[in-house]
Structure formats: C-alpha cells, structure tokens
C-alpha cells in the first residue's frame, strides 16, 4: 500500500490549517487526516472481507454507479414531486437557498454547453449573467417594460453578446481563450461599475419590478420558487435534447478532436460560435430572473469569483453531464449554507472538500464516460 498519497494529502491539510489555528491544531489535523485516510485505504484493501457494503461504497468512487440511480425515471418523478410540495413545509430560509440554487443551476447548465460539450474554457461567463440582469433592470426601470416582455430582449441581447465575444475569441485556443474570456468578464463589470449615467455605477439599480402573470404579481418567495422550478425544468429539457442531437454531437466531436470533426463535415468555427451563444442565452435567462427576484442589481454581484464558482459547479458535478452539473450547482450553493455553523472555516472546508473530490473522482460527481446512445 502506498503511503505517499495519504501523506501528501495530510501534510497539505496541515499547511492549510497552520495560519488559522497554529502549529498544534495543524499537527492534530495532520494526524487525524492521515489516520482516517490510512484506515480507509486498509479497509479498501480488505474489502473482500466486508465484501458487500464496503464494495458498494468503493464502487461509488470507482465507477458510474451513481449515474443509473440518479437517472432512474421513478427517482426523478419522486424528486420532482418533493420539489413541488416543498414550499408548504419549509421555512423561508430554505426556500431562499432553493431559489439561489435554481438560478445557479440554470447558469451552470449554460456554462456546461461551452465547457462540458464544446470543451472551450470560458472564465468570463458571469458577463452574460450581468448583461441579462442589467438588460432587464434597465428596460424595467427606464422604460417600464414588464418581466415577460423584457425577458426575450435580454436573452436575445446576451446571445448576441455571446456571438460577439466568440468571434474574436475563437481565433485562440486553450489558455489564450481562457484569458480573453476572463478579460471580457472584467470589462463588462467595469463598464457597469463606471457608466454612472446609465447604470448608476456601484450604487446599482433598485426598484426593479417583479414578474406579473395575468394581473397576479409575484411577491412571495414561493412564487419565485415555482417560477424557477419551471425555468430549470425547461433549461434541463432543452439542453438535454440539444445535447443528444446533431448539434450536441457536433460540439462533443469538436471537444474530442477538432481536426477529425472538421474532416467529417462539421463547421468547427460555426459550432463553437453556437456553443458560446447558446450558453450565453441561459445566462441571460438566469440574469433576468435574478434581477426580478432581488429587485436590485449592482456590479458586485458579477465579480470574477462568480465565474469561478459557476465553473466549479460544472467541473465538480461532472463536465458534460447534465444531471451532474445540476447536482454540482446545488451542492455548491448548499454546502456553504450548511457550513455556516463553522463560520470562519467555511471556505476552508469547502476548498478542502473540492480538493478531496478532485483527487478521488477527477471526472466529477456524476461525470465520466457514459454512452448516451444504445442499440
């Protein structure tokens, strides 16, 4: 049994703890983590003895055991039913977290189109989110246009923004593309922050009205919750369908091998453009809902960290897997909330959790090679 891996992991944790809790705590955490890892490893080694239960746990890490469970159709219905009746049983706080999760699920599904399907790194995805939010905010406060009339406009505008960014960016690959998209994200944020006459700069825009359906105004959290469940379902259905279509397959072919993709007749430039625009489209939706729900937007909601967070959701859940990305987004909203108890160490624990996950399951929670088509 190799000792090096557990040793490196526990030393790394100890170093992480050092500046916060001093040498003693660092040593203790080092010993605890090392022992836990060793115990876990030795149990795995003798997994034949405890064959059944442990074998299953081990398999969760090793295979795609979770995917069929998650994708079983009954579980999906049960889950959906639970989501529908949930608002009647929970506190507003839980509902608020659920709403935030839904917004991030839409965002992560949008970014998944670019990163997961087409394999292009986009570090400025938050820019589209911001454009969507500000478009609705401005249309509403300046021109008095309602949510439902403004929504198509803001989604169209973010889609166009996606195209416009992609045209120069797609001449570049890999790292360079990442840097250009990062720059784009910052430019959008800085414009919003400094164009005082239009966006009121850092003060943000307040007094945005909430959606109205047949003279029924959304004002309670429950209303937004159902609105978001509706949009999340639509987003999942459409991205799933596009994923399993001619367009989605073209994206995956480009991700896998761009040269081979071009020689079987895929217009690689065009499809990369599509992926940027299609991803941005969803960010526009999420942004508009965000603005309507908060009734307030300001540039500080759209920092680079948001882009990183959304990217983490995609990678953590399983890049390219729709159910994985949904789980990833949900977890990354939920975990910081659960960890509120340990206030100070919240981000530390979250970071450590991410590192552990990436070591044991680099393809993401529900990611991995799984064929979507069968004979």
């Amino acid at each position, binding site marked *: 049994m190799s000792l090096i891996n557990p040793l490196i992991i526990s030393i790394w944790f100890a170093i992480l703890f050092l500046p916060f809790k001093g040498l003693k705590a660092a040593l203790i955490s080092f010993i605890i983590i090392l022992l836990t890892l060793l115990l876990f490893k030795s149990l795995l080694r003798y997994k034949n003895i405890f064959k059944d239960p442990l074998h299953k746990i081990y398999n969760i890490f090793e295979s795609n055991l979770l995917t069929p469970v998650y994708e079983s159709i009954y579980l999906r219905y049960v889950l959906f039913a639970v989501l529908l009746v949930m608002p009647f049983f929970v506190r507003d706080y839980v509902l608020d977290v659920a709403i935030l999760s839904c917004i991030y699920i839409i965002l992560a599904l949008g970014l998944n189109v670019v990163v997961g399907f087409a394999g292009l790194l986009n570090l400025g995805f938050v820019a589209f989110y911001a454009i969507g939010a500000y478009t609705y905010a401005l249309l509403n406060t300046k021109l008095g246009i309602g949510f439902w009339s403004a929504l198509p406009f803001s989604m169209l505008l973010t889609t166009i923004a996606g195209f416009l960014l992609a045209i120069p960016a797609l001449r570049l690959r890999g790292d360079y593309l990442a840097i250009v998209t990062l720059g784009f994200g910052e430019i959008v944020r800085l414009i919003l922050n400094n164009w005082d006459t239009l966006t009121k700069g850092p003060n943000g825009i307040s007094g945005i009205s909430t959606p109205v359906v047949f003279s029924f105004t959304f004002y309670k959290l429950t209303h937004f919750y159902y609105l978001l469940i509706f949009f999340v379902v639509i987003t999942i259905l*459409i991205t799933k*369908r*596009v994923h399993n*279509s*001619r*367009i989605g*397959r*073209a994206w*995956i*072919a480009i991700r*896998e*091998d761009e*040269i*081979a*993709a*071009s*020689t*079987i*007749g*895929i*217009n*690689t430039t065009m499809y990369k453009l599509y992926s940027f625009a*299609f991803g941005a489209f969803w960010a526009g939706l999420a942004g508009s809902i965000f603005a309507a729900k908060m009734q307030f937007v300001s540039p500080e909601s759209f920092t680079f960290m948001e882009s990183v967070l959304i990217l983490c959701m995609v990678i953590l859940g399983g890049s390219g897997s729709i159910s994985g990305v949904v789980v990833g987004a949900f977890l990354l909203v939920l975990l910081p909330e659960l960890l509120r108890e340990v206030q100070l160490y919240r981000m530390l624990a979250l970071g450590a959790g991410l590192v552990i996950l990436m070591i044991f399951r680099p393809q993401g929670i529900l990611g991995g*090679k799984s*064929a*979507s*088509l*069968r*004979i």
Partner: protein
Amino acid sequence: MHLLEFRNISMHFGGIKAIEDLDMRVKENQIMSIIGPNGAGKTTIFNCITGLTKPVKGSIFFSGKDIVNLQPHEIAKLGIARTFQNIRLFKEMAVLENIIVAQHCRTSSGLVDTVFGLGRFRREERIIREKAIEYLEFVGLYDFANTVSGSLPYGAQRKLEIARALASEPSLILLDEPTAGMNPQETGQVMELIENMKKLGKTVLLIEHDMKVVMGISEWIVVMDHGVKIAEGIPEDIKNNQLVIEAYLGKEY
C-alpha cells in the same frame, strides 16, 4: 473520367519542399495507392486534398470543381472522407455515436427542429441510427456498438475510423496507412474491406507501407520521393521500376 486531379500542386513548409509540382489523377471507382519512403510527402497530399493545409501553388479538381480554397468541412460535404495515420477517433463517444456524428454533413436538423422535437428531427435521428448500424456491420464492429471507442483494441479502432469515414457518404475515401500495426489476419480483413468499398462504387486512395496490401489490391500506384512523383503505373510495372527500387533501397542495388 477523373474524379480527382492534381495540377501543379506545390507545398512548402519553410524551406522544405514537401510536394513539388505534383500532377496526379485518380480515376473514378479505382483503388489507387501512394507509396514512398518516409518524408516523401504522402500525408501532405492527403492534408491538401482535405483542406487541412493549403498548397502554396496549383489546383486540385474534385468532380471538376477546384477545392483548393475550400474549408475542410466544405470539402467533406462534397464527398471526400479520410482516416488518419495516428488514429483520431472521438474517444469518449460510444462506437455507435462515432458513426452517427459522422453523418453530420448529410443531415440538416436545426436548433428549432431539435428543441421542439419536430417530425424532421425524429425522422432523421431514426434514419442515421439505422445507417450507423449498417456501417458497423459493414466493418464488422456491430458487437462493439455500445463500447466507448477509446477502449477498443487497436485494430478495431482503425476499422471504426474507416466506418466513420464511410458514414459521411463520400465518393472518394482517403486511407492513411489503414493496416499500420495490424496482424496479418486483421490486415486481410482490411484488404477485403477496401475491395468491398470499391464494390459500393467508392474511389479509394491509399497510403500504405505494407507491400502485400499495396500490390494485392491497387489498380494504380503512384510513387513519391522527396515530394516528387518518380513513377506511376500498374503494380507489375512499379515492382520492376529501377527508379522505385533506387528510392527504396539506394543506388548500389
């Protein structure tokens, strides 16, 4: 009738002349091989035909149309498909999906059809699936249909690449060393496959080092050396051509 015609094609990489003033013709429904020592410019010819590199001079006519300035995907749509010397499969896709995606340029469902699941989308999906299964049966990979293609054995990967090339419904198919690294039995299967392609009416252009394959199935052979065509003819003539023997073995022999 000539399906493919090279006129004065030259391709330089910096100071290296990969191809120099090449004239070449490929007859329709013919199996033609390009042979030559390493660095003779064979793969560069393929790259020029498929639009991956642009020749510095000359023109390439395919079915009477100059394709030199077209993009790779446009050339694929006209009916040219290829395999690669170093296999380039879509490794994380299932075998069946590899074939399905290759029918991209023969299908036309757009975003609207897809999102609303319109009739055209459903029909097309069904047809390409059925066709994909046919292509898999043609190359003998039906049993692997649901396997992730990256985990196939080497010989099967080469065959899958051939099936993928066929799936884009080309009239001209370019095979870059299709039997490299195969055992004699697999080589035999690929030779049979190539002959079956001819029966389907395809034109096959082949780069190959295995002389048993080249001499066994080619109807016409072009010999390249240092970017220049040094000979062409039927297999019997090439075997006895003094220039070819010199290029391969050196002058003393």
